[in-house]
């Protein structure tokens, strides 16, 4: 296991941010930490990147303890932060040169390595441009190039697509998948974006610093029973009672709408509309998503 977390707990004063968390990340996979803001993702990310020591528990990365040997861990991780970490006044190549030297790389070896990395991320023609003139999507790719430069054992991403437009998001997801498929890179990413989570090999769902569920996206979604029917209604509480009475089904009230999980949802929709004429404003059916998994386990939505 390239990352191993055991009984990790972190408190800010009396507030518990991480509560006895354990998980492993296998090499060559994309591992996602999925949870809403405030779920403990950022705290966990800071601990994994050696920026902070946990209250208790153990984190091992590439065989080194993150608290006792942060220097060895730093040598082996590439970090892409949510906020930009490039010098805007330097060119792409200058940024990478500066960072490469902090890893003890230099001279012709460093320069050929930079060219190689830029090539890999489709940035070869941008090397001489000032970072401040690049678009958000390109900048994020330069950040990835920076993180990859020293040949890390694992890449850690914090909210990789934050601040990117939908096109750049999509592209970023395929860049990450490409790194795993063609270069065997291990990736750990913290996210609250479902499209990103869908592309992970394995997910850890996090809520209030606790593990809610863990598994592949398909495994997690198969926990939800059948289809999901969502009803927009004028009075959710009243209709919830009537659905229970009539169909013996527990509907869940979420953000002013009702959610029902049921196999063969299309038949149920017909029966519902028939049973409560006029009470339903709109009705929808979808296959379970990770959002449904999260709702089932926690009662709150990810966004």
């Amino acid at each position, binding site marked *: 296991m390239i990352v191993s977390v055991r009984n990790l707990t972190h408190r*800010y004063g009396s507030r518990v941010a991480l509560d006895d968390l354990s998980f492993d990340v296998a090499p060559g996979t994309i591992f996602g930490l999925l949870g809403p803001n405030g779920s403990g993702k*950022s705290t966990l990310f*800071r601990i994994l*990147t*050696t*920026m*902070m020591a946990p209250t208790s528990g153990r984190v091992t990365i590439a065989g080194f303890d993150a608290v006792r040997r942060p*220097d060895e861990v*730093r*040598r082996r*991780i590439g*970090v892409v*932060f949510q*906020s*930009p*970490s*490039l*010098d805007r*006044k*330097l060119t792409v190549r*200058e*940024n990478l*040169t*500066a*960072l490469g*030297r*902090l*890893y*003890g790389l*230099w001279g012709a070896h460093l320069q050929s390595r930079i060219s190689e990395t830029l090539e890999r991320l489709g940035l070869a023609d941008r090397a001489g441009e000032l970072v401040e003139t690049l678009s958000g999507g390109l900048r994020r790719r330069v950040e990835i190039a*920076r993180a990859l430069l020293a040949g890390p054992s694992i890449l850690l991403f914090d909210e990789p697509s934050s601040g990117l437009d939908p096109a750049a998001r999509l592209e970023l997801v395929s860049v990450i998948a490409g790194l795993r498929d063609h270069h065997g890179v291990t990736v750990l990413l913290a996210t609250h974006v479902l499209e990103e989570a869908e592309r992970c090999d394995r997910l850890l769902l996090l809520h209030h610093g606790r593990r809610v569920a863990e598994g592949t996206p398909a495994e997690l979604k198969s926990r939800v029973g059948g289809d999901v029917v969502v009803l927009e209604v004028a009075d959710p509480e009243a209709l919830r009672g009537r659905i229970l009475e009539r169909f013996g089904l527990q509907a869940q009230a979420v953000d002013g709408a009702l959610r029902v999980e049921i196999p063969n949802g299309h038949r149920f929709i017909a029966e519902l509309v028939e049973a409560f004429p006029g009470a339903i404003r709109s009705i929808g059916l979808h296959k379970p998503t990770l959002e449904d998994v999260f709702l089932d386990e926690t009662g709150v939505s990810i966004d």
Partner: protein
Amino acid sequence: MSKDFGLAVTTLWWRELVRFWRERARVAGFVGSPLLFWLIIGSGFGDLAFFFPGAITLTVMVSATFSTMSLIEDRREGFLLAVLVSPAPRSAMVLGKVLGASTLAWIQGLVLLAFLPLAGLRPPAASLLAAALIIYLISFSFTALGFLIAWHMESSQGFHAVMNLVLFPLWMVSGALFSPASAHGWMQVLMQLNPLAYSLAALRHFLAPAADPHRPPLASSLIVTAGGALALVLLATLAARRHPKGSFA
């Protein structure tokens, strides 16, 4: 000093110089205002030579400390984040930043030095060299001081407040504006306790020795100036071994 340490220090130093070069317009502002200030005060009191070392000191102090202000934002969102997760030791980060920023402040001090003839001063070449060295030590000390304060600060507003409370009083009772000889008893004591007064005296010794004969001896001036620089950079290194504020939220 290992190769990696040296490489990290020189790289961070180089980054500051490149950035500075790309923002030349800002430099004019840093040098322009103290120059104006000096010409007005100096001409008003009819003694350009007396106020000259003080004007250089002020330029260097302000430039040195405020160039470390970027640390506050830089570590939350910027290049410093990447430095902090790199294997480069914290001490290399401190030294690189302090050397870089102090070099820039020093260059601005040297630009001001070119106006020496305007003050009617013609020191010999050896004195000029010595003055340049002292100007560098002042830059270095105040960059290290700025680093020390910025590292503990959450916002640049707080930084401004602290710097105004530290910087300007320090400068005003350094002998830049009046000689200890003309000061009241308690002010003389304050001036004796102010480390900057010694740096200013050393600068005056080499640039305008006739302007104020009532100075502390050169040897103690040099010792305090060099000792202060060393002490401050050590304190900054110690501070940086702990995680910066603002990365904890």
